[in-house]
């Protein structure tokens, strides 16, 4: 007897979404050492990585928020399914309104969760990735406290990451109970490949527990 069962049809009920907000520093200092160019390249890597995995392409939901200019926070387009994600071209210049950008990210996450609940779509715990090479030029203390509260209430997973030696790791670390990591050697590509794999991950964690993303690898600078 053959061990192949003929005519088996598979339905596809996997409606899960993985929301991701990228909060990106576009202040003037990002033009030094071509950091902004490397960040733009990294975003293209993220696009390619998300699109080459059929499940990440379908379940990823991406929003880009940039901050810079004259204390400007810009939501760059609407929430986008990863399969349709086209990274914006970021331009560096101006100040570092990190507090306002993170407030915007928290608000966008809650609004997006509300929309998905209304639509009956299940979702993973959202991730906010904050990238900066400096320190805020606006008031950030209350927002940082609210970010930690949101993490403690298991609403979101926040990853602050410093770029280069001038990043204020203490302030970045105030946005998450986990503290901040430093990007090693401007390895934006490695960071975004890791991020894409975190979205693809299938692991389950205990409800209300600490989210465990994939172990950070070559992009993270080990503090000694």
């Amino acid at each position: 007897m053959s061990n192949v069962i003929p005519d088996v049809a598979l339905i596809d009920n996997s409606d899960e979404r993985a929301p991701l907000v990228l909060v990106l520093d576009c202040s003037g200092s990002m033009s030094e050492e071509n950091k902004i160019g490397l960040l733009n390249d990294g975003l293209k890597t993220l696009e390619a990585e998300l699109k080459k995995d059929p499940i990440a392409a379908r379940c990823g939901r991406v929003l880009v928020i940039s901050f810079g200019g004259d204390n400007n926070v810009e939501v760059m387009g609407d929430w986008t399914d990863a399969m349709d994600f086209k990274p914006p071209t970021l331009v560096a210049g101006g100040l570092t309104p990190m507090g306002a950008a993170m407030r915007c990210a928290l608000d966008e996450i809650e609004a997006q969760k509300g929309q998905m609940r209304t639509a009956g779509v299940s979702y993973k715990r959202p991730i906010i990735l904050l990238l900066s090479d400096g320190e805020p030029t606006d008031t950030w203390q209350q927002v940082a406290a609210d970010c930690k509260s949101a993490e403690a209430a298991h609403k979101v997973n926040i990853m602050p990451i410093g770029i280069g030696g001038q990043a204020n790791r203490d302030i970045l670390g105030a946005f998450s109970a986990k503290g901040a990591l430093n990007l090693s050697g401007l390895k934006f590509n490695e960071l975004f490949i890791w991020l894409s794999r975190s979205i693809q991950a299938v692991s389950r964690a205990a409800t209300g527990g600490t989210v465990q993303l994939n172990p950070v690898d070559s992009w993270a600078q080990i503090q000694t």
Partner: protein
Amino acid sequence: MSWKVFLASATGKHHLDGNTPCQDAVHCVQLDAGFVGVVCDGAGSASQGRQGADFFAGAVSERVAAALRAGNLEPGLTGDGQECLLDIIESAREELGQMAQVQNCALRDFACTLVGCASSRAGGFFFHIGDGFAVHRSDSGQSIVSRPENGEFSDETYFVTEGNWREHLRITPLPAARSGALIGLMSDGTSPFAIDRGRTGFYGPFIDPVVHFLARASARDGNQALHQVLASERTYGITADDKTLLLALAT
């Protein structure tokens, strides 16, 4: 009446790509005119999730089967029967907790979900903690299901290893089995392509050819064929997770 039981686990694409083993486990004990089956899904967030899944699938199904044989678990699972099931799960937790200590681990390092079924001549029940799915389809086609419990986020669930496991143990009574009935237990890697969109029962075009084949198959051929379905590359676009399915056909 007797049960023909088939079971298979296939490693998901995520673990295949990472060259890591399947985190699911399945175990079944056949009884006179009944069976006990348990599917466990080891938590990817736990260092010993696979070992936890193996342990709980084996220990809980064997002990529930022993209690059924001894007459300590009645099919409707009321009163003393529920206490007996709680005691069985607690004793398994304690045993693994002691083994974990020897390995300098904690019980939570062995985190896994658990979805099980006990079926005897007079009836049975599902018992379920966390995600995964269980379906009983009667000979007339009506389904009783035990759905996953995830909380707000789909990548979080409840584990038998957690201190509050009793709050998340869900018991679903099942009727006395009749010839033509079908029972399925599955991990959350299988349900996205095997359960209908409304989550009311099996997806017919999936399960009907499978049951048609298994009804005529030996245990060995049936298990191999079921594994081929679960391991099929066609599943890769739907889930990257490990896939386990236990199917019991009442004949």
